[in-house]
Protein backbone atom coordinates (compact mmCIF):
# COMPACT_ATOMS: atom_id res chain seq x y z
CA UNK A 1 0.00 0.00 0.00
CA UNK A 2 2.77 2.45 0.97
CA UNK A 3 4.71 1.63 -2.18
CA UNK A 4 1.63 2.18 -4.37
CA UNK A 5 0.83 5.49 -2.69
CA UNK A 6 4.42 6.66 -3.12
CA UNK A 7 4.51 5.65 -6.79
CA UNK A 8 1.23 7.47 -7.48
CA UNK A 9 2.39 10.58 -5.64
CA UNK A 10 5.69 10.35 -7.53
CA UNK A 11 3.85 10.02 -10.84
CA UNK A 12 1.91 13.22 -10.12
CA UNK A 13 5.07 15.15 -9.17
CA UNK A 14 6.90 13.53 -12.07
CA UNK A 15 4.16 14.65 -14.48
CA UNK A 16 4.85 18.23 -13.47
CA UNK A 17 8.58 17.84 -14.10
CA UNK A 18 7.83 15.95 -17.32
CA UNK A 19 5.58 18.63 -18.82
CA UNK A 20 8.05 21.42 -18.03
CA UNK A 21 10.88 19.29 -19.41
CA UNK A 22 8.88 18.79 -22.62
CA UNK A 23 8.21 22.55 -22.84
CA UNK A 24 11.93 23.31 -22.37
CA UNK A 25 13.10 20.72 -24.90
CA UNK A 26 10.48 21.47 -27.57
CA UNK A 27 11.33 25.18 -27.61
CA UNK A 28 15.07 24.39 -27.50
CA UNK A 29 14.51 22.16 -30.49
CA UNK A 30 13.00 25.05 -32.42
CA UNK A 31 15.12 27.97 -31.30
CA UNK A 32 18.29 26.57 -29.67
CA UNK A 33 17.46 28.69 -26.62
CA UNK A 34 16.86 27.24 -23.14
CA UNK A 35 13.69 28.73 -21.70
CA UNK A 36 14.38 29.31 -18.01
CA UNK A 37 11.14 31.27 -17.62
CA UNK A 38 8.80 28.35 -18.33
CA UNK A 39 8.10 27.78 -14.62
CA UNK A 40 7.36 31.49 -14.17
CA UNK A 41 4.53 31.22 -16.70
CA UNK A 42 3.07 28.40 -14.53
CA UNK A 43 3.31 30.68 -11.50
CA UNK A 44 1.64 33.51 -13.45
CA UNK A 45 -1.21 31.16 -14.41
CA UNK A 46 -1.81 29.94 -10.85
CA UNK A 47 -1.49 33.28 -9.05
CA UNK A 48 -3.28 35.21 -11.82
CA UNK A 49 -6.37 33.00 -11.60
CA UNK A 50 -6.24 33.04 -7.78
CA UNK A 51 -6.06 36.85 -7.76
CA UNK A 52 -8.94 37.34 -10.19
CA UNK A 53 -11.21 34.84 -8.38
CA UNK A 54 -10.31 35.48 -4.71
CA UNK A 55 -9.57 39.24 -4.75
CA UNK A 56 -11.66 40.53 -7.66
CA UNK A 57 -14.51 37.98 -7.44
CA UNK A 58 -14.36 36.98 -11.14
CA UNK A 59 -16.07 33.74 -12.18
CA UNK A 60 -13.51 30.91 -12.55
CA UNK A 61 -13.89 30.30 -16.34
CA UNK A 62 -13.48 34.03 -17.11
CA UNK A 63 -10.46 34.23 -14.79
CA UNK A 64 -8.80 31.23 -16.48
CA UNK A 65 -9.43 32.49 -20.03
CA UNK A 66 -8.24 36.03 -19.19
CA UNK A 67 -5.09 34.78 -17.46
CA UNK A 68 -4.21 32.49 -20.38
CA UNK A 69 -4.84 35.33 -22.86
CA UNK A 70 -2.56 37.65 -20.88
CA UNK A 71 0.20 34.99 -20.72
CA UNK A 72 -0.10 34.40 -24.49
CA UNK A 73 0.01 38.14 -25.23
CA UNK A 74 3.00 38.60 -22.93
CA UNK A 75 4.87 35.73 -24.64
CA UNK A 76 4.10 37.19 -28.08
CA UNK A 77 5.23 40.70 -27.12
CA UNK A 78 8.41 39.30 -25.55
CA UNK A 79 9.24 37.48 -28.80
CA UNK A 80 8.51 40.55 -30.92
CA UNK A 81 10.37 43.05 -28.75
CA UNK A 82 13.28 41.11 -27.22
CA UNK A 83 13.93 37.94 -29.20
CA UNK A 84 13.38 39.45 -32.64
CA UNK A 85 15.69 42.33 -31.81
CA UNK A 86 18.31 40.10 -30.22
CA UNK A 87 18.26 37.13 -32.62
CA UNK A 88 17.09 38.49 -35.98
CA UNK A 89 18.55 42.00 -36.03
CA UNK A 90 21.73 43.18 -37.67
CA UNK A 91 23.70 42.39 -34.50
CA UNK A 92 22.15 38.97 -33.95
CA UNK A 93 23.39 37.14 -30.86
CA UNK A 94 24.37 33.49 -30.99
CA UNK A 95 25.73 30.88 -28.61
CA UNK A 96 24.05 29.07 -25.78
CA UNK A 97 25.57 31.23 -23.02
CA UNK A 98 24.42 34.57 -24.50
CA UNK A 99 20.92 33.41 -25.41
CA UNK A 100 20.62 31.71 -21.99
CA UNK A 101 20.48 35.18 -20.42
CA UNK A 102 17.48 36.31 -22.49
CA UNK A 103 15.17 33.90 -20.67
CA UNK A 104 17.09 34.15 -17.38
CA UNK A 105 16.39 37.90 -17.36
CA UNK A 106 12.77 37.24 -18.35
CA UNK A 107 12.40 34.94 -15.33
CA UNK A 108 13.63 37.68 -12.96
CA UNK A 109 11.35 40.23 -14.64
CA UNK A 110 8.25 38.02 -14.24
CA UNK A 111 9.13 37.29 -10.59
CA UNK A 112 9.40 41.02 -9.88
CA UNK A 113 6.07 41.83 -11.55
CA UNK A 114 4.37 38.92 -9.73
CA UNK A 115 5.71 40.12 -6.36
CA UNK A 116 4.13 43.55 -6.92
CA UNK A 117 0.83 42.16 -8.27
CA UNK A 118 0.28 39.11 -6.05
CA UNK A 119 2.36 39.71 -2.89
CA UNK A 120 4.65 37.18 -1.20
CA UNK A 121 2.14 34.76 0.42
CA UNK A 122 1.41 31.21 -0.74
CA UNK A 123 -1.73 31.01 -2.90
CA UNK A 124 -3.33 28.57 -5.33
CA UNK A 125 -5.92 28.68 -8.09
CA UNK A 126 -9.28 27.18 -7.01
CA UNK A 127 -9.41 23.39 -7.45
CA UNK A 128 -11.02 22.43 -10.77
CA UNK A 129 -12.28 19.07 -9.44
CA UNK A 130 -13.39 19.15 -5.80
CA UNK A 131 -13.88 16.14 -3.50
CA UNK A 132 -12.01 13.57 -1.44
CA UNK A 133 -9.07 11.59 -2.82
CA UNK A 134 -9.76 8.66 -5.17
CA UNK A 135 -8.84 5.01 -4.60
CA UNK A 136 -7.01 3.22 -7.43
CA UNK A 137 -7.73 -0.55 -7.82
CA UNK A 138 -8.90 -0.77 -4.20
CA UNK A 139 -5.47 0.23 -2.88
CA UNK A 140 -3.45 3.42 -3.22
CA UNK A 141 -5.02 6.88 -3.03
CA UNK A 142 -4.60 9.85 -5.37
CA UNK A 143 -5.92 13.40 -5.06
CA UNK A 144 -8.37 14.59 -7.69
CA UNK A 145 -6.05 17.45 -8.68
CA UNK A 146 -3.35 14.80 -9.14
CA UNK A 147 -5.58 12.93 -11.60
CA UNK A 148 -6.01 16.16 -13.57
CA UNK A 149 -2.25 16.75 -13.55
CA UNK A 150 -1.62 13.22 -14.87
CA UNK A 151 -4.32 13.64 -17.52
CA UNK A 152 -2.87 16.99 -18.64
CA UNK A 153 0.64 15.51 -18.84
CA UNK A 154 -0.66 12.60 -20.90
CA UNK A 155 -2.60 14.85 -23.28
CA UNK A 156 0.20 17.41 -23.70
CA UNK A 157 2.93 14.75 -24.13
CA UNK A 158 0.84 12.81 -26.66
CA UNK A 159 -0.13 15.95 -28.56
CA UNK A 160 3.52 17.00 -28.99
CA UNK A 161 4.52 13.46 -29.99
CA UNK A 162 1.74 13.19 -32.58
CA UNK A 163 2.49 16.69 -33.92
CA UNK A 164 6.20 15.98 -34.39
CA UNK A 165 5.77 12.45 -35.74
CA UNK A 166 2.74 12.78 -37.99
CA UNK A 167 2.61 16.34 -39.36
CA UNK A 168 4.78 18.20 -41.82
CA UNK A 169 4.49 21.25 -39.53
CA UNK A 170 5.99 19.21 -36.67
CA UNK A 171 8.90 18.12 -38.85
CA UNK A 172 9.37 21.71 -40.07
CA UNK A 173 9.47 22.79 -36.42
CA UNK A 174 12.26 20.28 -35.76
CA UNK A 175 14.12 21.44 -38.87
CA UNK A 176 14.21 25.02 -37.49
CA UNK A 177 16.35 23.92 -34.54
CA UNK A 178 18.40 21.40 -36.54
CA UNK A 179 19.50 23.93 -39.15
CA UNK A 180 17.83 27.35 -39.36
CA UNK A 181 19.48 28.19 -42.69
CA UNK A 182 18.48 24.84 -44.18
CA UNK A 183 14.94 25.38 -42.92
CA UNK A 184 14.68 28.81 -44.59
CA UNK A 185 15.96 27.34 -47.86
CA UNK A 186 13.06 24.84 -47.75
CA UNK A 187 10.61 27.73 -47.36
CA UNK A 188 10.05 27.30 -43.59
CA UNK A 189 9.31 30.46 -41.61
CA UNK A 190 11.69 29.91 -38.66
CA UNK A 191 10.60 33.10 -36.82
CA UNK A 192 6.95 32.09 -36.97
CA UNK A 193 7.71 28.68 -35.45
CA UNK A 194 9.83 30.28 -32.74
CA UNK A 195 7.07 32.57 -31.51
CA UNK A 196 4.30 30.00 -31.97
CA UNK A 197 6.11 27.42 -29.82
CA UNK A 198 7.21 30.04 -27.29
CA UNK A 199 3.64 31.29 -26.83
CA UNK A 200 2.27 27.72 -26.95
CA UNK A 201 4.62 26.42 -24.23
CA UNK A 202 3.95 29.53 -22.09
CA UNK A 203 0.19 28.84 -22.25
CA UNK A 204 0.72 25.10 -21.54
CA UNK A 205 2.85 26.02 -18.50
CA UNK A 206 0.15 28.43 -17.29
CA UNK A 207 -2.56 25.73 -17.69
CA UNK A 208 -0.40 23.34 -15.72
CA UNK A 209 0.15 25.91 -12.97
CA UNK A 210 -3.62 26.42 -12.69
CA UNK A 211 -4.32 22.66 -12.51
CA UNK A 212 -1.43 21.77 -10.20
CA UNK A 213 -1.34 24.71 -7.75
CA UNK A 214 -4.11 23.31 -5.47
CA UNK A 215 -1.68 20.46 -4.61
CA UNK A 216 1.47 22.44 -3.77
CA UNK A 217 0.51 26.14 -3.55
CA UNK A 218 2.60 28.81 -5.32
CA UNK A 219 4.47 31.99 -4.36
CA UNK A 220 5.99 34.51 -6.75
CA UNK A 221 9.29 32.56 -6.44
CA UNK A 222 7.88 29.10 -7.27
CA UNK A 223 8.59 29.43 -11.00
CA UNK A 224 12.37 29.16 -10.64
CA UNK A 225 12.17 25.83 -8.77
CA UNK A 226 9.80 24.33 -11.36
CA UNK A 227 12.00 25.56 -14.23
CA UNK A 228 15.08 24.05 -12.58
CA UNK A 229 13.56 20.58 -12.22
CA UNK A 230 12.12 20.71 -15.73
CA UNK A 231 15.55 21.85 -16.92
CA UNK A 232 17.25 18.85 -15.25
CA UNK A 233 14.73 16.41 -16.74
CA UNK A 234 15.16 18.06 -20.17
CA UNK A 235 18.94 17.71 -19.81
CA UNK A 236 18.46 13.94 -19.45
CA UNK A 237 16.88 14.05 -22.89
CA UNK A 238 19.82 15.99 -24.31
CA UNK A 239 17.47 19.04 -24.47
CA UNK A 240 16.40 17.88 -27.94
CA UNK A 241 14.32 14.77 -27.23
CA UNK A 242 10.93 15.67 -25.72
CA UNK A 243 9.94 11.99 -25.34
CA UNK A 244 13.04 11.14 -23.36
CA UNK A 245 12.65 14.35 -21.30
CA UNK A 246 9.09 13.30 -20.44
CA UNK A 247 10.24 9.86 -19.24
CA UNK A 248 13.10 11.44 -17.28
CA UNK A 249 10.64 13.82 -15.57
CA UNK A 250 8.38 10.92 -14.54
CA UNK A 251 11.36 8.85 -13.33
CA UNK A 252 12.72 11.74 -11.26
CA UNK A 253 9.29 12.29 -9.67
CA UNK A 254 8.89 8.60 -8.72
CA UNK A 255 12.48 8.33 -7.46
CA UNK A 256 12.00 11.48 -5.37
CA UNK A 257 8.82 10.07 -3.77
CA UNK A 258 10.38 6.64 -3.05
CA UNK A 259 13.50 8.21 -1.53
CA UNK A 260 11.32 10.48 0.61
CA UNK A 261 9.21 7.52 1.77
CA UNK A 262 11.85 4.84 2.32
CA UNK A 263 15.17 6.61 2.84
CA UNK A 264 14.65 10.02 4.43
CA UNK A 265 11.99 12.68 4.07
CA UNK A 266 14.56 15.26 5.19
CA UNK A 267 17.45 14.27 2.94
CA UNK A 268 15.43 12.75 0.07
CA UNK A 269 16.22 15.61 -2.34
CA UNK A 270 19.93 15.55 -1.44
CA UNK A 271 20.13 11.80 -2.15
CA UNK A 272 18.09 12.28 -5.36
CA UNK A 273 20.44 14.92 -6.77
CA UNK A 274 23.46 12.83 -5.72
CA UNK A 275 22.02 9.89 -7.72
CA UNK A 276 21.26 12.12 -10.74
CA UNK A 277 24.77 13.57 -10.68
CA UNK A 278 26.30 10.07 -10.41
CA UNK A 279 24.25 8.88 -13.40
CA UNK A 280 25.49 11.82 -15.46
CA UNK A 281 29.10 11.11 -14.53
CA UNK A 282 28.77 7.37 -15.20
CA UNK A 283 26.84 7.42 -18.52
CA UNK A 284 26.91 10.94 -20.02
CA UNK A 285 26.55 9.73 -23.61
CA UNK A 286 23.75 7.23 -22.96
CA UNK A 287 21.76 9.86 -21.06
CA UNK A 288 22.08 12.41 -23.86
CA UNK A 289 24.35 14.84 -22.03
CA UNK A 290 26.96 14.81 -24.78
CA UNK A 291 24.35 16.00 -27.30
CA UNK A 292 23.21 18.65 -24.81
CA UNK A 293 26.72 20.06 -24.69
CA UNK A 294 27.57 19.73 -28.38
CA UNK A 295 24.11 20.76 -29.52
Amino acid at each position, binding site marked *: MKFGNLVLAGLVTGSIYAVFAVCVSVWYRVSNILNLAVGDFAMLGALGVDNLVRVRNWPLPAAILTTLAVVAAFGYVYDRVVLRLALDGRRAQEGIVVTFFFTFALSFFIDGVAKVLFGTDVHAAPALWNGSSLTVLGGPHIERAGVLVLACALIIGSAFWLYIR*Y*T*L*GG*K*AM*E*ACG*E*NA*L*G*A*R*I*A*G*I*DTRRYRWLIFVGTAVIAAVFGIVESPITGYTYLSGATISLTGFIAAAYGGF*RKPGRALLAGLAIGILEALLGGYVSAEYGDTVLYAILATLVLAWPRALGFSSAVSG
Partner: protein
Amino acid sequence: MTGPMTGPMTGATPATPALAVRSMSVAYGAMVAVHDATFSIAPGEACAITGPNGNGKSSLLMGIAGLVRRRGGVEIFGVPAPNGDVRWAARRGLTLVPERRQLYPGLSAVDNIVLGCYCWTSSLRKARASRPFGLALELFPEIRPHLRQPAGTLSGGQQQMVAIMRGLASDPKILAVDEPCLGLAEAMSRRVYDALARIHEAGTTLIVVEEAPKRALTICDRRVEVRNGVVGTP
Protein backbone atom coordinates in the same frame (compact mmCIF):
# COMPACT_ATOMS: atom_id res chain seq x y z
CA MET B 1 -0.34 10.80 -56.93
CA THR B 2 -1.14 14.39 -56.11
CA GLY B 3 1.21 17.28 -56.58
CA PRO B 4 1.66 20.98 -56.24
CA MET B 5 -0.02 23.46 -58.57
CA THR B 6 2.34 23.50 -61.53
CA GLY B 7 0.49 25.73 -63.95
CA PRO B 8 2.18 28.49 -65.94
CA MET B 9 3.64 31.34 -63.92
CA THR B 10 1.45 34.43 -63.76
CA GLY B 11 2.62 37.06 -66.22
CA ALA B 12 5.13 34.73 -67.89
CA THR B 13 5.24 34.70 -71.72
CA PRO B 14 7.38 32.51 -73.99
CA ALA B 15 9.92 35.36 -74.13
CA THR B 16 10.01 35.83 -70.37
CA PRO B 17 13.29 34.56 -68.93
CA ALA B 18 13.13 32.01 -66.11
CA LEU B 19 15.57 34.18 -64.20
CA ALA B 20 16.58 37.80 -64.87
CA VAL B 21 19.28 39.48 -62.78
CA ARG B 22 19.64 43.24 -63.24
CA SER B 23 22.45 45.37 -61.76
CA MET B 24 22.66 43.13 -58.71
CA SER B 25 25.29 43.73 -56.03
CA VAL B 26 25.96 41.86 -52.80
CA ALA B 27 28.08 43.32 -50.00
CA TYR B 28 29.12 42.12 -46.53
CA GLY B 29 29.72 45.39 -44.69
CA ALA B 30 32.36 47.29 -46.64
CA MET B 31 33.39 44.20 -48.64
CA VAL B 32 31.58 44.03 -51.99
CA ALA B 33 31.34 40.38 -53.11
CA VAL B 34 29.29 40.89 -56.32
CA HIS B 35 29.44 44.04 -58.49
CA ASP B 36 26.57 45.09 -60.68
CA ALA B 37 25.72 41.66 -62.13
CA THR B 38 23.32 41.49 -65.10
CA PHE B 39 22.36 38.31 -66.93
CA SER B 40 19.34 36.15 -67.66
CA ILE B 41 18.57 32.47 -68.08
CA ALA B 42 15.86 31.17 -70.41
CA PRO B 43 13.29 28.57 -69.32
CA GLY B 44 14.70 25.04 -69.68
CA GLU B 45 18.25 26.28 -70.07
CA ALA B 46 21.18 24.84 -68.05
CA CYS B 47 23.66 27.53 -67.04
CA ALA B 48 27.00 27.10 -65.29
CA ILE B 49 28.30 29.83 -62.99
CA THR B 50 32.04 29.32 -62.80
CA GLY B 51 35.11 31.07 -61.48
CA PRO B 52 37.85 30.73 -58.85
CA ASN B 53 36.87 30.15 -55.25
CA GLY B 54 36.29 33.30 -53.18
CA ASN B 55 35.38 35.38 -56.24
CA GLY B 56 31.65 35.73 -55.53
CA LYS B 57 29.92 32.72 -57.16
CA SER B 58 28.11 31.57 -54.02
CA SER B 59 27.31 35.18 -53.01
CA LEU B 60 25.75 35.69 -56.44
CA LEU B 61 23.59 32.59 -55.97
CA MET B 62 22.66 33.50 -52.39
CA GLY B 63 21.71 37.04 -53.50
CA ILE B 64 19.48 35.61 -56.24
CA ALA B 65 17.83 33.12 -53.86
CA GLY B 66 17.30 35.81 -51.21
CA LEU B 67 19.57 34.25 -48.58
CA VAL B 68 21.57 37.48 -48.31
CA ARG B 69 20.39 41.04 -48.93
CA ARG B 70 21.26 42.54 -52.31
CA ARG B 71 20.99 45.70 -54.37
CA GLY B 72 19.44 45.63 -57.82
CA GLY B 73 16.67 43.48 -59.20
CA VAL B 74 15.92 39.78 -59.57
CA GLU B 75 12.91 38.49 -61.50
CA ILE B 76 11.68 34.90 -61.46
CA PHE B 77 9.50 34.19 -64.50
CA GLY B 78 8.91 37.93 -64.86
CA VAL B 79 7.88 38.55 -61.25
CA PRO B 80 10.19 40.81 -59.16
CA ALA B 81 11.59 38.85 -56.18
CA PRO B 82 11.42 40.57 -52.76
CA ASN B 83 14.83 41.32 -51.30
CA GLY B 84 16.13 38.86 -48.69
CA ASP B 85 13.11 36.53 -48.81
CA VAL B 86 14.34 33.00 -49.53
CA ARG B 87 10.89 31.57 -48.71
CA TRP B 88 9.31 33.61 -51.52
CA ALA B 89 11.88 32.28 -53.99
CA ALA B 90 11.24 28.68 -52.86
CA ARG B 91 7.47 29.10 -53.19
CA ARG B 92 7.89 30.75 -56.60
CA GLY B 93 9.85 27.79 -57.97
CA LEU B 94 13.52 28.72 -57.41
CA THR B 95 15.07 26.07 -55.16
CA LEU B 96 18.61 26.23 -53.87
CA VAL B 97 20.75 23.17 -53.12
CA PRO B 98 23.35 25.06 -51.11
CA GLU B 99 27.04 24.53 -50.61
CA ARG B 100 27.67 22.12 -47.68
CA ARG B 101 24.09 20.80 -48.19
CA GLN B 102 22.51 22.40 -45.08
CA LEU B 103 20.59 19.24 -44.14
CA TYR B 104 18.90 18.60 -40.78
CA PRO B 105 21.38 16.11 -39.28
CA GLY B 106 19.18 14.75 -36.49
CA LEU B 107 16.21 14.05 -38.79
CA SER B 108 15.99 10.93 -40.93
CA ALA B 109 16.92 11.10 -44.61
CA VAL B 110 13.26 10.67 -45.62
CA ASP B 111 12.17 13.53 -43.34
CA ASN B 112 14.86 15.73 -44.89
CA ILE B 113 13.52 14.91 -48.34
CA VAL B 114 9.83 15.32 -47.50
CA LEU B 115 10.52 18.76 -45.99
CA GLY B 116 11.35 19.88 -49.52
CA CYS B 117 7.58 19.70 -50.12
CA TYR B 118 6.93 22.25 -47.36
CA CYS B 119 7.05 25.17 -49.81
CA TRP B 120 3.89 23.93 -51.57
CA THR B 121 1.95 21.93 -48.94
CA SER B 122 1.48 21.73 -45.18
CA SER B 123 0.06 18.19 -45.36
CA LEU B 124 2.43 15.28 -44.70
CA ARG B 125 0.01 12.86 -46.39
CA LYS B 126 -0.16 14.98 -49.56
CA ALA B 127 3.61 15.46 -49.56
CA ARG B 128 4.32 11.71 -49.30
CA ALA B 129 1.81 10.89 -52.05
CA SER B 130 3.05 13.65 -54.38
CA ARG B 131 4.71 13.30 -57.76
CA PRO B 132 7.77 15.47 -56.85
CA PHE B 133 8.43 13.36 -53.72
CA GLY B 134 8.10 10.16 -55.77
CA LEU B 135 10.46 11.52 -58.44
CA ALA B 136 12.97 12.48 -55.75
CA LEU B 137 12.98 8.92 -54.36
CA GLU B 138 13.37 7.47 -57.87
CA LEU B 139 16.32 9.73 -58.67
CA PHE B 140 18.69 7.99 -56.23
CA PRO B 141 17.45 4.43 -55.52
CA GLU B 142 20.66 3.75 -53.57
CA ILE B 143 19.35 6.02 -50.77
CA ARG B 144 16.29 3.78 -50.18
CA PRO B 145 18.02 1.48 -47.61
CA HIS B 146 19.14 4.58 -45.67
CA LEU B 147 15.85 6.50 -45.61
CA ARG B 148 15.28 5.93 -41.86
CA GLN B 149 18.89 6.79 -40.98
CA PRO B 150 19.65 10.22 -39.45
CA ALA B 151 21.01 12.42 -42.25
CA GLY B 152 24.02 13.41 -40.13
CA THR B 153 25.24 9.78 -40.13
CA LEU B 154 25.23 9.43 -43.95
CA SER B 155 28.40 9.68 -46.02
CA GLY B 156 29.21 12.95 -47.81
CA GLY B 157 28.01 11.58 -51.14
CA GLN B 158 24.77 10.26 -49.66
CA GLN B 159 24.17 13.63 -47.98
CA GLN B 160 24.63 15.39 -51.32
CA MET B 161 22.08 13.01 -52.87
CA VAL B 162 19.60 13.75 -50.04
CA ALA B 163 20.14 17.52 -50.53
CA ILE B 164 19.35 17.19 -54.26
CA MET B 165 16.35 14.96 -53.45
CA ARG B 166 15.04 17.60 -51.01
CA GLY B 167 15.45 20.21 -53.74
CA LEU B 168 13.59 18.04 -56.25
CA ALA B 169 10.73 17.38 -53.76
CA SER B 170 10.03 21.13 -53.79
CA ASP B 171 8.95 20.73 -57.47
CA PRO B 172 11.40 23.39 -58.69
CA LYS B 173 11.03 25.31 -61.92
CA ILE B 174 14.61 26.47 -61.43
CA LEU B 175 17.09 24.30 -59.50
CA ALA B 176 20.27 26.09 -58.39
CA VAL B 177 23.02 23.74 -57.16
CA ASP B 178 26.06 25.20 -55.44
CA GLU B 179 29.29 23.16 -55.71
CA PRO B 180 27.53 19.78 -56.00
CA CYS B 181 30.78 17.77 -56.05
CA LEU B 182 32.64 19.52 -53.24
CA GLY B 183 34.56 16.86 -51.30
CA LEU B 184 33.12 13.93 -53.28
CA ALA B 185 35.02 11.05 -54.89
CA GLU B 186 35.12 10.91 -58.70
CA ALA B 187 32.57 8.06 -58.99
CA MET B 188 30.12 9.88 -56.69
CA SER B 189 30.61 13.15 -58.62
CA ARG B 190 29.70 11.37 -61.85
CA ARG B 191 26.59 9.92 -60.18
CA VAL B 192 25.52 13.38 -58.98
CA TYR B 193 26.05 14.88 -62.46
CA ASP B 194 24.06 12.07 -64.09
CA ALA B 195 21.17 12.91 -61.78
CA LEU B 196 21.43 16.65 -62.54
CA ALA B 197 21.39 15.84 -66.26
CA ARG B 198 18.17 13.82 -65.77
CA ILE B 199 16.56 16.68 -63.85
CA HIS B 200 17.44 19.08 -66.69
CA GLU B 201 16.18 16.68 -69.36
CA ALA B 202 12.83 16.61 -67.55
CA GLY B 203 12.49 20.33 -68.30
CA THR B 204 13.79 21.99 -65.14
CA THR B 205 15.91 25.11 -65.60
CA LEU B 206 19.28 24.34 -64.05
CA ILE B 207 21.99 26.56 -62.52
CA VAL B 208 25.21 24.85 -61.48
CA VAL B 209 27.93 26.68 -59.58
CA GLU B 210 31.36 25.09 -60.05
CA GLU B 211 34.94 26.25 -59.68
CA ALA B 212 36.07 24.27 -62.73
CA PRO B 213 33.95 24.72 -65.88
CA LYS B 214 34.93 21.42 -67.53
CA ARG B 215 32.54 19.18 -65.61
CA ALA B 216 29.72 21.75 -65.47
CA LEU B 217 29.80 22.18 -69.25
CA THR B 218 29.07 18.46 -69.73
CA ILE B 219 25.45 19.25 -68.87
CA CYS B 220 25.20 23.07 -69.25
CA ASP B 221 24.37 24.94 -72.46
CA ARG B 222 26.23 28.09 -71.49
CA ARG B 223 28.50 29.60 -68.87
CA VAL B 224 28.61 32.77 -66.79
CA GLU B 225 32.04 33.59 -65.34
CA VAL B 226 32.50 35.39 -62.01
CA ARG B 227 35.91 36.96 -61.33
CA ASN B 228 36.56 39.35 -58.46
CA GLY B 229 32.82 39.76 -58.08
CA VAL B 230 32.35 40.85 -61.69
CA VAL B 231 30.04 38.75 -63.86
CA GLY B 232 30.89 38.24 -67.50
CA THR B 233 30.62 35.78 -70.39
CA PRO B 234 33.88 34.00 -71.23
